[in-house]
């Protein structure tokens, strides 16, 4: 254990002597996050203008409007009604509405049986977060309606007279909807820009640690110091652990700095400090796994450097570090393949008042999945090319 700590301490000492490493992990993210907070102003509140196109004119569609204007979303959502989908589309494109939900004709009737046409959400790239909200509301509403269809169908099968079915369906829709539609992660609080960009920039710059770690490894190989360590009574495990520990510690310190400065000096707000810490830990573990992967793939310091850059920018772009909430639904889905995308999702939730497991549970699982996949690939690669 002492040897592991010695290796970690030595690595950290070297890292801290490298001024560019300081700037990248500690100074740059704080500066950029601060600038962004400044640029976006102190009190950018989140408010979504969501259009509704009711082609159904039945009680089920009315239920949706009720949800949107209900107490949970009051202050967050402003509803605008449009006569047809084309008008709504134009409104969304021109930015008058941020997103719109189109309830198809015959939606209520479909509750009686038959297959309903889908509820459509119109969105625009410029208002990703609002679109996400609209989608969340629509999805949970449809899920609820489907549950109702099932219960109505059950009632019909049980012998309820045909003429009672519409009434029954409408009742079913109205009965339980309000408490059901509280899309997870979309709570009452407005999301402060800095609560997103603080961690976002912290994570982006901490990803650079992958490059430092991998390059450090190849530098040691080239310098011959790795041989010296291997000639000492130090197991491969201890070496690996020591190096991982330093990368982990360094990443964690970087993230902690950015979140603390964002919180204390720049006004970021998260509902749950433990949640913030947990997301930071998860991200630091992901950085360790990525470093190991780059070391396993690359053969020289040069290659490691290039590969690490690809990883950093690829993940940052896919994970949405540069956009305030992920844009299109494609981007949104892409972010689910990145640890930083998951972490940012967690930070968004924490920034809008969601706490505990509800905010960090899914992100943690997502990050864990990513780490597991990366580690599996790393181990496989190392197996393939082991030649002592």
């Amino acid at each position, binding site marked *: 254990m*002492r*040897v592991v700590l*010695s290796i970690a301490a*030595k690595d950290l*000492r*070297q890292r801290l*002597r*490298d001024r560019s490493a300081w700037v990248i992990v500690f100074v740059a993210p704080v500066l950029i996050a601060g600038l962004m907070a400044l640029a976006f102003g102190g009190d950018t509140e989140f408010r979504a203008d969501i259009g509704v196109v009711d082609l159904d004119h039945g009680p089920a569609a009315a239920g949706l409007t009720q949800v949107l204007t209900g107490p949970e979303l009051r202050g967050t959502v402003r509803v605008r009604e449009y006569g047809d989908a084309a008008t709504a589309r134009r409104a969304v494109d021109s930015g008058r509405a941020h997103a719109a939900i189109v309830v198809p004709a015959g939606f209520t009737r479909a509750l009686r049986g038959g297959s309903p046409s889908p509820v459509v959400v119109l969105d625009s790239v410029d208002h990703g977060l609002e679109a996400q909200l609209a989608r969340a509301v629509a999805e949970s509403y449809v899920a609820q309606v489907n549950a109702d269809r099932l219960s109505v169908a059950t009632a019909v099968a049980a012998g309820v007279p045909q003429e009672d079915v519409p009434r029954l369906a409408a009742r079913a829709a109205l009965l339980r909807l309000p408490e059901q539609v509280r899309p997870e992660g979309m709570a009452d609080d407005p999301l402060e820009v800095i609560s997103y960009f603080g961690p976002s920039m912290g994570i982006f710059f901490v990803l650079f640690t992958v490059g430092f770690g991998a390059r450090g490894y190849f530098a040691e190989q080239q*310098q*011959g*110091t790795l*041989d*010296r*360590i*291997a*000639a*000492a*009574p*130090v*197991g491969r495990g201890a070496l690996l652990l020591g190096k991982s520990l330093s990368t982990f510690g360094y990443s964690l310190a970087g993230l902690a700095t950015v979140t603390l400065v964002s919180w204390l000096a720049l006004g970021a707000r998260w509902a749950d400090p433990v949640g913030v810490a947990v997301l930071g830990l998860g991200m630091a573990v992901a950085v360790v796994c990525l470093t190991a992967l780059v070391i396993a793939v690359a053969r020289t310091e040069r290659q490691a450097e290039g590969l690490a850059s690809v990883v950093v920018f690829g993940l940052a772009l896919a994970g949405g570090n540069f956009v305030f909430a992920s844009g299109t639904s494609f981007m949104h889905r892409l972010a689910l393949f990145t640890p930083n995308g998951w972490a940012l999702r967690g930070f968004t939730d924490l920034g809008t008042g969601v706490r505990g497991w509800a905010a960090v549970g899914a992100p943690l699982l997502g990050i864990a999945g990513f780490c597991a996949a990366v580690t599996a690939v790393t181990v496989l690669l190392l197996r393939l090319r082991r030649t*002592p």
Partner: protein
Amino acid sequence: MNDAAPQPVLDCAHLVRRFGDRTAVDDVSLRIAPGETYGLLGPNGAGKTTAIRMVCGLLRPDAGTVRVAGLPVSTAAGPAKRLIGFVPQEVALYPDLSVRENLRFFGRLYRLPRRRLEARVAEVLDLIGLTARARDRVDSLSGGMRRRLNIGAGLVHAPTLLVLDEPTVGVDPQSRHAILESVTRFGEQGMAVLYTTHYMEEAERLCDRVGIIDRGRLIAEGTPRELVSLVAERDRVRLTAVGDLDAFARACRRFTRVEGAARGGDRDDVVEVVVKDARSLLPELLDLAHRQGVHVRSVEIDEPDLETVFLHLTGTALRE
């Protein structure tokens, strides 16, 4: 060996290592007794570094075993490695750490208790003459100082066997002298030393025993005196000349009474020839030189040395 001999500090048996279809080390066996300084002498690419890497557990032999104080390096790697001090051929240090931090780090890898570590670091600093520069970063040291620190880093844990891979390559004469002095002292202090070099003067001066390695094979072994006695009957003829000396050396080797001939020694304009009886062959050599258009300036006939041994055993020079 007889039973009364103490357990060797290093015992390599039939080491083989191949890289692809090239056999870098081919059935090398050697033993080093406590306090003995053993020189592995051979030209570039002979397999010295490869052999040393197997001794230090950095490279797995394809065949054969390495034991350090009776402990096999392959299975009891930890305890065996603790006894070895490894000084790689190239300087292997952290340039961004200070001299003292480097020594401390490498000492910690051997789990020295804190007190002892500090004491040893101070001793080693003194030994390599870098006490005054202890706080300086390695990248601010001169090349010779780095070489000395490179050796020091292998000494902190007071190894039983010190393994040095060509520690004097690219070193100015003064530092070289200092390095050789300290190696002599290690031997006197009872440390066993395995020393590789392609400078036969070093091997002759430092080593209790020398093994000559060429193309992966250990072709002769003994004290420098024993080795030289292998060629006691021979003369070393040094011809200082101008012309196509490579072609001349090749032509010399065609004489059956010539055992070896090569450009070299320490100068460019010299051809060395090992022969049984120089006086009777000399006229023919000079005649050959004349026919090849090589202009001979001077001829010396010397006592054989390790270089002669090498020339005798391989037909070519230690340094090309």
